[in-house]
């Protein structure tokens, strides 16, 4: 009703309350974080255990842990291949090994196109396969007319042969494709002038393939051709005319040309042991010597996790789990870190670290390996927490799913409950509204709820209240009838006594008093009659019969009668020209009109006629009685028609009991008519309207 204030319905309130269910995911999320920490801790301890377990069989086996003095970062570590490589310059068949690449980068000068490359060497049976992926945006090829020239992009392979002699083999192509490697030999011609001659090497083959942002060089070398040491120098030339060397990076640093790094291979004995001990997927095990140099490695960190079960919606909401992340240690030939130095000094230790790209957290644990009481190596076990993240993610998805389900169910229930509640309240409101009609009369149509809750109680209390109100109303309505009945006997006593007194004869003064007493008793009689009129009418209504009556003629007759009955008043009548046939009880209509006209004449200011009108309006016809004069008080328009309500200020010569309009109401109700009274402020008139349904009965 109150339109200005924002209405907050029960339903909306309950729905708002249901939002509290949404706190479940938050609490669950906190719980999952806790769980993740626990899982990580247990993962760490299990990794430490695993490191110890792997270290166990290695203890005391000095032959597996050679003592080396070679600087660790210069060595090249040869990985083991599962299959031979196709020499084509493309990395397709390398994909699962690319993790092992070592990365070399130009340092110092900040050129717009710095040289960098990844280097990977592996072995399949009797061949070393080498992949060098060079980042060099500007490729400069050898001029075709100068075989053996090195003023262009080229790669030098420096190695010792079987006899320990240092050899250099050049890959300096004049075109993409198969690069014919050559050695340079310094000769002296017949004039004693030195010149360099290129001897093509046949047992080493390479393919040079330009790719986006650089080139790949893929090389196959028979294991027998290479001795203990091997290194590569990548030289970059960016200026096709000047042909100046822009940068050269060696795998063993600046010394590469003179002393390439030692070739290291997984010890077959260690690999065999690891193969037996390590079978967990997603776990990587390293065996290190006492300087952190990798002796053997097994397994990869990435593991195939089934992410398909997680709803794609959650993948949008939650940070993605990266099954592929950059692994800082893959292909490493030397490991460093807190846990490793701890292990190498004798204590098993665990460590957490992020992958360089921040996409994963890696847990590693190291345990020492002792030979004759001295630490000769270490076992490092690593695992990425992707698995834990995955579990957490799945738990979270489940939690979200279930929360959503619970939220949906709770919301639906609350909505149902609130709808039902507000429906019941609204129904109660409607019923309460309908229980008392616009005239303030209790209709007795209030259905009592049998519900056992507070709304039921409210309904019952309301019914109780209405019942009492009804009884009081009935008492009021019956009071008139009872009063008139009870008054009649004493009036008769007084009246008959007075008549006797009068008959007895008396002197003049007594006669005056007698006359006054008789006048009083007559008025009393009139009051009693008026009082009982409503009661009589109620009885008359029960036996009234409706018939077809021409209302136009009826009104004309009546107004004629009123002109005779109220000679001091004027009447104007406006009725339709034709007969208006209505199905009514004519005596009652006349009685009602009598009351309305009497009322109008009493209140008329006299200057204007009392207007009586009849109009047909659609399915209804309307009878109006209008008089000029005193207005009705505000807010009394509805109560006017109640029993014993009188708002008259004017003192008439006849007693008024406020029953006239009550009779109007009774008759109106009998005809299913709507009665209203209202002021017209424009011209100081008071109009009573009775709207009858047109086709009644």
């Amino acid at each position, binding site marked *: 009703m109150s339109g200005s204030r924002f209405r907050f319905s029960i339903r909306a309130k309950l729905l708002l309350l249901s939002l509290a269910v949404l706190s479940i995911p938050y609490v669950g999320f906190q719980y999952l974080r806790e769980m993740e920490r626990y899982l990580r801790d247990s993962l760490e301890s299990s990794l430490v255990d695993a490191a110890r377990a792997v270290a166990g069989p290695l203890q005391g086996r000095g032959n597996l842990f050679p003592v080396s003095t070679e600087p660790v970062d210069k060595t090249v570590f040869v990985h083991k291949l599962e299959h031979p490589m196709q020499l084509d310059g493309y990395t397709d068949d390398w994909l699962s090994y690319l993790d092992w690449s070592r990365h070399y980068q130009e340092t110092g000068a900040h050129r717009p196109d710095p040289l960098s490359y990844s280097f990977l060497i592996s072995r399949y049976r009797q061949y070393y396969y080498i992949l060098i992926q060079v980042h060099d945006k500007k490729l400069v090829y050898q001029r075709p007319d100068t075989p053996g020239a090195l003023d262009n992009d080229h790669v030098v392979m420096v190695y010792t042969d079987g006899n320990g002699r240092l050899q250099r083999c050049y890959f300096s192509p004049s075109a993409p494709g198969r690069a014919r490697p050559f050695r340079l030999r310094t000769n002296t011609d017949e004039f004693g002038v030195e010149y360099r001659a290129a001897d093509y090497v046949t047992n080493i083959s390479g393919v040079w393939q330009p790719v986006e942002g650089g080139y790949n060089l893929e090389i196959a070398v028979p294991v027998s051709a290479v001795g203990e040491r091997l290194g590569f120098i990548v030289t970059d030339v960016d200026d096709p005319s000047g042909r100046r060397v822009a940068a050269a990076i060696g795998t063993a640093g600046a010394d590469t040309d003179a002393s390439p790094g030692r070739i290291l291979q997984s010890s077959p004995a260690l690999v065999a042991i690891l193969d037996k001990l390590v079978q967990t997927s997603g776990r990587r095990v390293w065996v290190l010597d006492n300087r952190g140099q990798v002796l053997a490695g097994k397994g990869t960190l990435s593991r195939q996790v089934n992410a398909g079960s997680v709803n794609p919606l959650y993948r949008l909401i939650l940070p993605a789990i990266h099954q592929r992340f950059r692994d800082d240690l893959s292909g490493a030939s030397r490991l460093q870190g807190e846990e490793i130095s701890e292990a190498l000094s004798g204590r098993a230790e665990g460590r957490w670290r992020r992958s360089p790209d921040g996409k994963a957290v890696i847990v590693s644990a190291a345990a020492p390996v002792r030979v004759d009481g001295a630490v000769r190596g270490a076992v490092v076990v690593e695992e990425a927490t992707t698995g834990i993240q995955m579990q957490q993610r799945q738990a979270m998805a489940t939690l979200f799913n279930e929360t959503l389900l619970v939220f949906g169910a709770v919301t639906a229930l609350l909505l149902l409950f609130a709808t039902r509640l507000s429906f019941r309240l609204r129904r109660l409101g409607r019923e309460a509204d309908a229980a008392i009609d616009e005239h303030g009369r209790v209709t007795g149509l209030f259905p009592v709820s049998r519900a056992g809750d507070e709304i039921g109680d409210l309904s019952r209390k309301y019914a109780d209240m209405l019942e009492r109100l009804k009884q009081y109303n009935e008492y009021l309505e019956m009071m008139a009838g009872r009063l008139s*009945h*009870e008054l*009649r*006997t004493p*009036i*008769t*006593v007084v*009246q*008959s*006594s007075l*008549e*006797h007194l009068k*008959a007895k004869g008396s002197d003049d003064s007594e006669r005056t008093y007698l006359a006054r007493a008789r006048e009083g008793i007559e008025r009393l*009689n009139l009051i*009693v*009659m*008026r009082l*009982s*009129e409503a*009661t*009589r*009418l109620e*009885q*008359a209504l029960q036996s009234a019969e409706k018939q077809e009556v021409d209302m136009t003629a*009826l009104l004309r*007759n*009546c*107004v*004629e*009668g*009123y002109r*005779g009955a109220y000679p001091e008043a004027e009447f104007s009548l406006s009725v339709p020209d034709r007969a208006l046939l209505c199905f009514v009880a*004519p*005596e009652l*209509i*006349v*009685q009602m*009109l*009598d009351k309305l006209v009497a009322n109008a004449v009493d209140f008329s200011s006299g200057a204007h006629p009392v207007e009586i009108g009849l109009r047909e309006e659609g399915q209804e016809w309307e009878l109006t009685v209008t008089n000029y004069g005193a207005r009705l008080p505000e807010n009394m328009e509805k109560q006017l028609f109640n029993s014993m309500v009188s708002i008259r200020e004017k003192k008439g010569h006849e007693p008024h009991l406020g029953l006239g309009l009550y009779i109007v109401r009774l008759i109106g109700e009998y005809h299913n008519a709507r009665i209203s009274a209202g002021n017209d402020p424009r011209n100081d008139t008071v109009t009573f309207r009775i709207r009858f349904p047109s086709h009644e009965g």
Partner: protein
Amino acid sequence: MTKRVALVEDEAAIRENYTEALEKQGYDVTGYADRPGALRAFRQKLPDLAIIDIALVDEAEGGFELCRELRGMSPALPIIFLTARDSDLDVVSGLRLGADDYLTKEVSMHQILARVAALFRRIDALQSEDSRPAIHRAGDLSIDSNSMRVTWKDREVNLTLTEFWIVNSLARIPGHVKNRDQLMEDAKIFVADGTVTSHVKRIRRKFESVDPDFDRIDTVYGMGYRWKNQ
């Protein structure tokens, strides 16, 4: 011969006032306060006329009961009902208790005396065979103003005294509209408008009981009633 009137009324003051008034008119009046007392006396000897209050001491409708018993003893005995309630009039009429008239208590003594006198005149007219009936005929209607009886199409319409006077007033001048005040005057009653309406309604019903097609009493709304000749 002095007419004997029995007055059954529980209210002592009214009883005595009425008794005195009736005695002044030369009637021999005996008052009774309750039904058993009145009944005992009636068993001894019947009065010539009985005026009975409907509500008696403890019996709200003791008067009706007494009327029935009295009718059992004498079908011709004139009975006038007195009542404080308008609604009782319908019962008197509806039950066909055979009352000759009924009055509400606020009527004046004159009206009661007029009725008593009229009833005795009616009885006298019936008893003296030789007395000339003063018959007024108007079509199917005949009114005997001596015996105060009305016949319609030669069948007697059992009207009470008040009803007779109303019919008489209307039918004497057919076509002439009589308003309620005139009718009340002619019927020697002074009651509210609504009472005349219900009297007329009852009269119509009584005529309809002998002739279902009866429609001679015309309501002129807002003015009154008239008797239509055809």
